[in-house]
């Protein structure tokens, strides 16, 4: 029932029933997200985090006295649909656009928002997104060029690996991660002995695990989406892989742990965003999220939540709803939880729109993610 209510704006918007003229008492910030298709888990987590923040802000009077008006548009997890949805909302002159989460979709539609000079706060993590000189693109999670070097350091210093295998999903997210990982391994003189691509939505990993077993690597870097990660872990346990399985955020997410069961125990890696972070504000957010949506939030929920507070804070700094001024002011801005509690952790946006903040090293112990070390901001 709740979902039906949440989807009502989507249906209304899809049918073109919303008025292009937005009431003066609201600010139009549409969200274009993966609400169906392969990316629905990521998109719905992002959406729910975002809705929680919007309701909190609107309940306190909105931004500069205007309530946030956020219709939800579904990309169906397809880049072409995402682009069409962006084109549609641009006709209504949005202040800022939120989403999408899939890097492939972001890379396709960010040209449109750049031409229209509208800031876009995205959930995509592919390195390429912020390397195209687009002054209107911002993230609320690490790009791969920030997270993968941390993994690489851990492979060298923590695991002490001399050889590694990499298993990656063949989409923009996976390919970007794989390319960055191999570059970082080469720069640390760690040899990549197996480079195995898998398909998005792949269900059977027995062949991939057989190949990994034959590769005799010191450690295996796993860079897949949520469900594929869980299926892989089950197969890896089934076939008795005994090398360290190292991942980045997704592999250690609670959803993957729940799906993989015992097979997730022992998995280690870098975690950019997690509700298990030893930070009270993050844990309180996670509790509010769970109470409202009745499921545990993943890192995408935190991305969605902080995206809205990022918009609020920047807007209150510039004291007007001016898209160009927003993009200009947001670069180089640091927001602390003291200034804006909804940002949860201190964060800085650089000249490319990339975010820098603390992150974590984690391990799965007895079916729970355990944070073993907090890593400082890269800029410190």
């Amino acid at each position, binding site marked *: 029932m709740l*979902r*039906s209510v949440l*989807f009502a704006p989507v249906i209304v918007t899809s049918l073109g029933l919303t008025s292009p003229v937005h009431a003066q008492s609201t600010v139009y910030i549409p969200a274009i997200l993966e*609400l*169906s*298709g*392969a990316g*629905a*888990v990521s*998109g*719905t987590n992002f959406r729910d985090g975002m809705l929680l923040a919007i309701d909190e802000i609107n309940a306190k009077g909105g931004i500069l006295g205007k309530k946030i008006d956020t219709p939800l548009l579904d990309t169906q997890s397809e880049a072409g649909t995402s682009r069409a949805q962006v084109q549609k909302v641009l006709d209504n002159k949005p202040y800022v656009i939120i989403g999408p989460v899939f890097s492939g979709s972001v890379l396709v539609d960010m040209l449109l928002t750049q031409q229209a000079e509208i800031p876009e706060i995205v959930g995509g993590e592919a390195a390429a997104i912020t390397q195209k000189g687009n002054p209107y693109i911002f993230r609320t999670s690490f790009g791969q060029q920030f997270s993968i070097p941390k993994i690489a350091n851990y492979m060298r210093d923590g695991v002490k690996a001399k050889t590694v295998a990499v298993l990656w999903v*063949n989409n923009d997210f996976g390919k970007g991660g794989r390319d960055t990982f191999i570059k970082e391994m080469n720069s640390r003189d760690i040899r990549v002995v197996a480079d*195995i*691509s*898998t*398909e998005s*939505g792949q*269900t*059977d990993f*027995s*062949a*991939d695990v*057989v*190949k990994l*077993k*034959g590769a005799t690597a010191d450690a295996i870097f796993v860079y897949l989406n*949520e*469900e594929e990660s*869980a*299926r892989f872990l*089950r197969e890896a*346990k*089934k*076939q*008795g892989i005994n090398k360290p399985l190292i991942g980045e955020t997704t592999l250690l997410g609670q*959803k993957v742990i*729940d*799906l993989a*069961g015992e097979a997730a125990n022992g998995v280690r890696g870098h975690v950019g965003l997690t509700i298990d972070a030893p930070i009270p504000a993050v844990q309180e957010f996670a509790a509010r999220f769970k109470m409202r949506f009745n*499921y545990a939030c993943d890192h995408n929920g935190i991305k969605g939540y902080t995206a809205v507070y990022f918009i609020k804070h920047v807007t209150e700094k510039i004291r007007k709803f001016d898209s160009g001024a927003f993009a200009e002011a947001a670069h180089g801005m640091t927001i602390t939880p003291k200034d804006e509690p909804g940002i949860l952790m201190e964060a800085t946006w650089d000249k490319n729109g990339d975010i820098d903040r603390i992150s974590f090293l984690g391990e799965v112990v007895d079916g729970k993610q355990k944070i073993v070390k907090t890593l400082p901001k890269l800029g410190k």
Partner: protein
Amino acid sequence: MASFIQLLVSGLATGAIYALIAVGFTLLWQTSQTINFAQGEFVMLPAFFVLAAMNAGAPFWLAALIGISLSVLILGILFKVVVVDPMLKYGVLPLVISTIALSLLLKESTKDFYSSQAQPFPALVPAVDVHVFDAVVSTQSLAVLAVAIVTVVSLNLLLNRTRLGRQMQATAQNATLARILGVPVRRMVLYTFLLNAVLVAIASILVSPIYLAKFTNGETLGMAAFIAAIVGGFNQVRGAILGGIILGVLDNLSAAYISSQYRGAFPLIVLIIVILLRPQGLLGRIEERSV
């Protein structure tokens, strides 16, 4: 050698599931000229019936029975009465389009009413490894294979050794002649839909512990089974079984020994070769129709 055995068993287990789904394709086609493009979603849905029953407190065995019963009711009887019967008189194409629409409806409804997130699904047997010639074979794969074989053998016995089965075959081969000979054709067609519902429910219970229960599962399964049915022979149950097995094994072996990047292409290459060299499928028979 150990890797090969491991891949072979795993491929056979996957292929056996494809075979069950593909058999459903062929049964519906033979008796009612129905190509059901919602067949993949028919496999996805029973897992959620089972999970809903378990959430309500039912033990797994009871939940599985409830899942199969609901499948028979919704994916068998309701599907025939609400979708197939009204559309069939307009020909194959409108019915195909109706089943495509149905697949979208089932997929999105499952997402909205249950969850967009994948759900863990209980396995038939505990995960214990069996060592065969240095290969580690999972009891789950063996259980899937065993249940699929028992199901297919039972189906064959029903179709070939019982009066009911022979009446169903007569209906499939020539409905007009069967009606003249006193076979209750309408009832036989209904039974076929019920059989298909049972097959997809069993496939769902077998595949969901591996695939995890998710609203998008039908996309992969439906396509794989459709290709399997064409490769094996769309008008022969044994052809569908062979097609399923070939596809499952080929998928695993090609990913391991040729390229995991192009694994999705190999079944399609086989499909093209079969269509070019033997359009009726490996075990299919040529159908001649007068116009």
